[in-house]
C-alpha cells in the first residue's frame, strides 16, 4: 500500500520491479485455465484412441473432473462459482445447442419430424409425470423419511431428470453406422426434449411455489406449453431469415460474415429468454433456417470458419460441463437417501423403457419404416442423462426444502447412466445387431433415379389425394425456389442436386487421376490410351467426346467448384468437422509430377471418363477419403441425409478449406522452370506473396461472375496466411517475377484468363507442396 502513497515524505521504497495483481485478472484467468485444463484432458484421451472407442468422452471428462474435484477438496478450495443459473443458461448452453442444431441432418429430420416430436414431447411428458407420480407414491413410505416432498416438488424433480442427453450414444451410433431412422430420432429427441424439459421445469417450479393448484392452471399450463414451443420456433425462423437476408449483402465484408451467424443465433436465444419462451427451440430453428441460405451466400472460407467455430464452441462447452459435473460431485454437500435415490434410478429406467414401448406402438403405424424391437431397445437404452439435468438441478430454487437431495439424486442418475449405459451401449448394440444403414456409394445413377422416384411419388400422391412428406416437400421446394431463394440468396441460380453431384464426381475423378498416376504421367499415358481403345469399340465419335468432355469438365470445374464444395460437403457428424480438403490436397500434390512429365499433346488424350472406369466406386482407396455425402435430395436443398462415417480421431488435417483457383493452362507457364523450386519451397514464400488484401476476393467475385470462382489454396496449418485469393493482375506480376528467376518463386498459378478456350483441366500448374 505504500506504493500507492502520494505523500512526498513517504517515499516508496523503490520502484517496484515486479508486482502482482491477481484479483484483477482472476476471473478471466481462471476461466481460461479451466478451459485449458479441459482441453488438455481432451487431447490426452485422444492420444490413445482406443480408450475413446470403449469409453465415451463424457465419462472421461467426468472422471477427470472427479479427480480434480478431489484435489480441490483436499486442499479445501472452493470450486469456481461458475455454475450459477445465468452462466450456464446464457453462456454454456447456447453453444451446445447451436452445435446440435447446425449439424442436424435436415432431410432425414423432416422426414421423421413427426416421430421426433412425438418422442420428444410426449415421451418427456410421459417420463416426467410417470416418474413424478411414482416417486410421490414412494414418498409415502415412512422408511425413507422423505414424506415432506409434495407432489409438485416430485414432479419438478422428475422433469429435471427426464431430459435426455445422448451425447455418448450418438457417438456410438455414428461409429457403427446404425440405421438412419434410429439415429435421427435419438438426435432429434435429444434436441427437443431439452426444450420440453426446460419448459416443464419452468412450469413446475412456478407451480411448486404456488399453494394451491387450480384446474384452470392445468389448462393454462398446456396453453403455455404451446406458446412456448411455437413461439420459440417462430422467433428462430424469423431470426434465421433475417440472418440469411443480411448475408446477402456481405460480399464486401467477408471477414465478419461468420459474426452474423453467431450474433443472430445468440440474439434469437436471448430474445427468447427475454420472453421466457423456449430458447433452445429458437436457436435450433434459427440455425436450421439460416444454414441453408447462408452457406450459399458467404464465401467458402467463412463457411468453414462458421462450421469450425460452431463445433469448437459446442465441444468446449460440453467438455466444460462434464468437467464441472465431476468437480462439483466431490465438492458439494450431498444429502444421500438410499431409498429415494435408488427408486429414482429404477423409475428412470422403467418409465423410459415403458415409454418407448408404448409410444412406438402408437406411432409405428404412421411410419413408413416401423421401428422393430431392436430399434426400440436402442432408443430406450440410449436415454442417457447429462448436462441439462445437471444444470437444472443446480438452479432449483432454494425454497425447495430438499434441494440437496434432488441435486444428489440428479448427479447420481447422471453418473449412473453415463457410465453404465454409455460404456455398455456399444457392445450391446453391436451384439443385438441393430439395423445398420448402407452408406450409398455415390453415383449419378442413384441420384437420378432417386430423383425420378421422388417425382413419381409426388405425382402418385397427387393422384390419390394422399399428401405425405413427398408432397409437402415438393411444395416447399417450389416455394423455396420461387420466393425464398430470390430474396435471401445473392446469386440465386437454382442448382439441381443432380448437377451438383455430377460436378463433384467429375472433380473427384480428376483428382483420382492425379493421385493414382504416380510420378510419370507419360508412362501412364499409354495405359490410359489403351484403356480408351479397349473401351471405345463402337463407332461413335468418342474422340471428339473426350475433348468435349474435358472441356466440359474444365468448365464445370472452374465454374462450379465453389458450389460443389459448399453444397456437397454438408455433413452431420456430431463430433468431427468435414474433411473436405483431401481431394484438393491430392490435386496439389500431384501437380509437380504432372508438370514434369507433361508434354504438349501427349496428355491431351487422357480421358477422365475412362479413368473413372477403373477408379470409380469399386471400393478403391480414394473412396474412403471423400466425405461420402449422400445426396438424395430435391433440387436445391442438399443436406446430407445421414452423418458421414467419420472417424472421430482423424482431425481435418488441412483445415482451411479455401477455395481453389482455376488455374492457368500449363502452356503459358511452361517456360518457367520453377517446378523444382516449387517442390521445395516453403510455406513462407507462399505467404509472402499473398499480400493482397482479402478484399481481392470480393472484387473478383463481383467482377467475373462465371469463371471467377476463386479459390484459396488449401494450406497446411503451419502456413497461416497463404490463402488469399488473387486476381489476374497479381498473377501477371508474379509471372514476371518468376521470369526474373526469383529465388523464392511464388506459386506459379494465377487466375484463369477470361477467354474460354478449352483447357485441359489436368494441366494445372503445380502448386507448391504443403508439408504433410
Amino acid at each position: 500500500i505504500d506504493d500507492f502513497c502520494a505523500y512526498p515524505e513517504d517515499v516508496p521504497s523503490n520502484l517496484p520491479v515486479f508486482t502482482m495483481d491477481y484479483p484483477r485478472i482472476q476471473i478471466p484467468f481462471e476461466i481460461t485455465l479451466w478451459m485449458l485444463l479441459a482441453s488438455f484432458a481432451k487431447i490426452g484421451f485422444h492420444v490413445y484412441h482406443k480408450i475413446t472407442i470403449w469409453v465415451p468422452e463424457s465419462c472421461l471428462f467426468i472422471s477427470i473432473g472427479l479427480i480434480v474435484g478431489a484435489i480441490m477438496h483436499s486442499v479445501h478450495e472452493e470450486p469456481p462459482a461458475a455454475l450459477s443459473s445465468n452462466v450456464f443458461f446464457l453462456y454454456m448452453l447456447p453453444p451446445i445447442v447451436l452445435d446440435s442444431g447446425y449439424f442436424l441432418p435436415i432431410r432425414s429430420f423432416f422426414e421423421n419430424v413427426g416421430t421426433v416430436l412425438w418422442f420428444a414431447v410426449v415421451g418427456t411428458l410421459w417420463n416426467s409425470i410417470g416418474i413424478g407420480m411414482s416417486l410421490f407414491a414412494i414418498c409415502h413410505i415412512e422408511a425413507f423419511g422423505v414424506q415432506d416432498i409434495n407432489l409438485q416438488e416430485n414432479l419438478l424433480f422428475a422433469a429435471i431428470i427426464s431430459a435426455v442427453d445422448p451425447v455418448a450414444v450418438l457417438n456410438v451410433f455414428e461409429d457403427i453406422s446404425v440405421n438412419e431412422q434410429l439415429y435421427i430420432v435419438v438426435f432429434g429427441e435429444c434436441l427437443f426434449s431439452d426444450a420440453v424439459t426446460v419448459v416443464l421445469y419452468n412450469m413446475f417450479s412456478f407451480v411448486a411455489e404456488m399453494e394451491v393448484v387450480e384446474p384452470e392452471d392445468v389448462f393454462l399450463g398446456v396453453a403455455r406449453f404451446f406458446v412456448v414451443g411455437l413461439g420459440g420456433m417462430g422467433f428462430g425462423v424469423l431470426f434465421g431469415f433475417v440472418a440469411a437476408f443480411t448475408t446477402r449483402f456481405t460480399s464486401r465484408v467477408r471477414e465478419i460474415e461468420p459474426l452474423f451467424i453467431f450474433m443472430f443465433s445468440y440474439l434469437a436465444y436471448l430474445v427468447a429468454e427475454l420472453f421466457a419462451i423456449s430458447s433452445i427451440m429458437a436457436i435450433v430453428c434459427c440455425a436450421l433456417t439460416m444454414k441453408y441460405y447462408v452457406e450459399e451466400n458467404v464465401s467458402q472460407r467463412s463457411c468453414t470458419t462458421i462450421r469450425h467455430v460452431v463445433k469448437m464452441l459446442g465441444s468446449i462447452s460440453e467438455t466444460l460441463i462434464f468437467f464441472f459435473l465431476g468437480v462439483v460431485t466431490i465438492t458439494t454437500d450431498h444429502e444421500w437417501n438410499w431409498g429415494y435415490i435408488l427408486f429414482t434410478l429404477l423409475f428412470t429406467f422403467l418409465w423410459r423403457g415403458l415409454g418407448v414401448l408404448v409410444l412406438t406402438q402408437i406411432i409405428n403405424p404412421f411410419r413408413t419404416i416401423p421401428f422393430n424391437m431392436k430399434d426400440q431397445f436402442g432408443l430406450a437404452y440410449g436415454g442417457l442423462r447429462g448436462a441439462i439435468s445437471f444444470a437444472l438441478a443446480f438452479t432449483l430454487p432454494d425454497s425447495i426444502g430438499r434441494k440437496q437431495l434432488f441435486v444428489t439424486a440428479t448427479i447420481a442418475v447422471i453418473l449412473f447412466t453415463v457410465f453404465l449405459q454409455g460404456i455398455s451401449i456399444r457392445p450391446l448394440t453391436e451384439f443385438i445387431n441393430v439395423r445398420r444403414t448402407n452408406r450409398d456409394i455415390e453415383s449419378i445413377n442413384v441420384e437420378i433415379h432417386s430423383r425420378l422416384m421422388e417425382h413419381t411419388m409426388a405425382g402418385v400422391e397427387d393422384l390419390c389425394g394422399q399428401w405425405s412428406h413427398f408432397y409437402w416437400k415438393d411444395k416447399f421446394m417450389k416455394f423455396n425456389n420461387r420466393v425464398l431463394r430470390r430474396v435471401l440468396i445473392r446469386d440465386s441460380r437454382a442448382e439441381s442436386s443432380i448437377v451438383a453431384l455430377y460436378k463433384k464426381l467429375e472433380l473427384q475423378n480428376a483428382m483420382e487421376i492425379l493421385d493414382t498416376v504416380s510420378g510419370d504421367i507419360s508412362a501412364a499415358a499409354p495405359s490410359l490410351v489403351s484403356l480408351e481403345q479397349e473401351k471405345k469399340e463402337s463407332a461413335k465419335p468418342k474422340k471428339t467426346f473426350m475433348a468435349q468432355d474435358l472441356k466440359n469438365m474444365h468448365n464445370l470445374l472452374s465454374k462450379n467448384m465453389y458450389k460443389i464444395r459448399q453444397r456437397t460437403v454438408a455433413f452431420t457428424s456430431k463430433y468431427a468437422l468435414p474433411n473436405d480438403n483431401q481431394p484438393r490436397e491430392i490435386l496439389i500434390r500431384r501437380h509437380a509430377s504432372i508438370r514434369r512429365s507433361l508434354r504438349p499433346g501427349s496428355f491431351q488424350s487422357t480421358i477422365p471418363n475412362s479413368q473413372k472406369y477403373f477408379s470409380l466406386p469399386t471400393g478403391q482407396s480414394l473412396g474412403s477419403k471423400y466425405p461420402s455425402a449422400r445426396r438424395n435430395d430435391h433440387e436445391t436443398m442438399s443436406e446430407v441425409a445421414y452423418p458421414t462415417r467419420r472417424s472421430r480421431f482423424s482431425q481435418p488435417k488441412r483445415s482451411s478449406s479455401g477455395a481453389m483457383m482455376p488455374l492457368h493452362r500449363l502452356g503459358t507457364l511452361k517456360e518457367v522452370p520453377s517446378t523444382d523450386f516449387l517442390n521445395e519451397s516453403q510455406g513462407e514464400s507462399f505467404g509472402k506473396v499473398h499480400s493482397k488484401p482479402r478484399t481481392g476476393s470480393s472484387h473478383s467475385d463481383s467482377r467475373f461472375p462465371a469463371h471467377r470462382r476463386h479459390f484459396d489454396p488449401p494450406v497446411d496449418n503451419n502456413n497461416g496466411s497463404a490463402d488469399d485469393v488473387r486476381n489476374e493482375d497479381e498473377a501477371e506480376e508474379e509471372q514476371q517475377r518468376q521470369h526474373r528467376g526469383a529465388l523464392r518463386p511464388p506459386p506459379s498459378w494465377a487466375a484463369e484468363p477470361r477467354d474460354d478456350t478449352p483447357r485441359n483441366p489436368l494441366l494445372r500448374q503445380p502448386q507448391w507442396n504443403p508439408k504433410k
Partner: protein
Amino acid sequence: MGSSRSSLRRVPDGQQLLQETGCEPERWFCLGLRSEDLEAELSENPIGDRIVGAFFQPGQETVDFPSFVRVLAHFRPTEKNRTRDGVQPEPANSRNRKLKFAFQLYDQDRDGKISRTELLQVLREMLGLQVTEEQLQSIAERAIQEADLDRDDAICFDKFRKSLEKVDIDHKMSVRFLE
C-alpha cells in the same frame, strides 16, 4: 371387413385384383373418383405425363378401374414376411416390381433398355431450365458409363436394379395408404 365379399362381387375382376394387389378393392373406390383431379396437379410435375402414361397399357386409350388399381398397387409398402409359394404371382408391391415400374417410366418404347435419348429426355424434364444442354449430355453420358457394362450405350433393367441395390426402394416408393 364383413362387406368385403360383397364388394368383391361388385368390382369386376375383384377376386383377381385382390390376389394381385393384396388389398381390399373397396379401399380403391375412393381413389378411383379422384382421377379427374389429377390433371391440375400433375401438370406441374416434371414427369407428370410419364406418370399418367404409366397407367395406360400400351396401345390402350383408356384406363379402367382394375388397371388403375393394378398400377397403384405398386406403391404399397413392401410386406416383409409374406409367404409366397411358387404358384402365386409376384406381388405388385415387391421391390422388383417397384423397380420395374420406375424403369418403365424411363423406357417409353418398352424395349427393355434405357437408351441415351430416353435418359436425356427424362433428365431434360427433371432438370429443365437449370442446366445447359451440354451439361445434360455430360450427365447422361456419365450415368450411362456408370451403369453400362455391355457397352451398348443403354442401361438394361439388371444394371438399373444393380445400381440401386443399396437404396431403400421400399422407403422411397411407398405411400402408406390402403392399409
